[in-house]
């Protein structure tokens, strides 16, 4: 991994975490556990495949065990392909949409009387 990782150093990378959250930032450092240091990081909050917002969070250290995958997003075309499907909204707007989506899910859960699967160690 370390040899491969060095190519991504100082590039803008997209990191996908085990809980589904996404972070973008300049990869400044990494180690053998794939712990990552992201500078000028943003959390990319995506709701219902409709919209996304980039929430700035500065310098971030991400623990390797929570990383699912990461890769470069250096060029514009990838970003454009994504924007084709998701519209960018403000942080306030995305938080409202998150709450609405969570409420919908809770309603479905009550109706189905189904428990959510346990994701702590079951899924990974």
């Amino acid at each position: 991994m370390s040899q491969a990782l060095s190519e991504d150093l100082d590039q803008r990378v997209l990191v996908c975490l085990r809980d589904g959250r996404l972070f973008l930032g300049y990869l400044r450092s990494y180690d053998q556990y794939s712990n990552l240091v992201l500078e000028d990081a943003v959390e990319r909050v995506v709701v219902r495949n409709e919209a996304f917002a980039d929430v700035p969070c500065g310098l971030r250290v991400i623990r390797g065990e929570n990383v699912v995958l990461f890769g470069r997003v250096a060029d514009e075309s990838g970003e454009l392909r994504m924007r084709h499907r998701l519209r960018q909204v403000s942080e306030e707007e995305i938080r409202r949409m998150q709450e609405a989506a969570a409420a919908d899910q809770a309603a479905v859960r009550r109706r189905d009387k189904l428990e959510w699967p346990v994701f702590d160690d079951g899924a990974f």
Partner: protein
Amino acid sequence: MFFAALFQTLVGQVVTVELKNDLCIRGTLLSVDPYLNVRLADVVVTEPEAFPALLALRHSCTVRGSCVRYVHLPPDQVDVQLLQDATRQVASAVKAARVRPVGE
């Protein structure tokens, strides 16, 4: 270690990595390490509807080995007879090392 060597022989081939979060990524195998972390080039997310944000990925992408469920391999690129023989050899070696620890 053993499967890392197998993946090493498949560098340059197109494989599909299926993750435990049901994400499927197809790409050219660039490299693999002993933890079975894999690096893919020219990545395509097979279900962009489910993970539209990953469309931003380009060039290459590194997948952590522990998050992998399956790796779909090209059958014509793997000599299964060779693989079975190697498995038997490695299994014997592992067992021998365990039954007779070094220094005994």
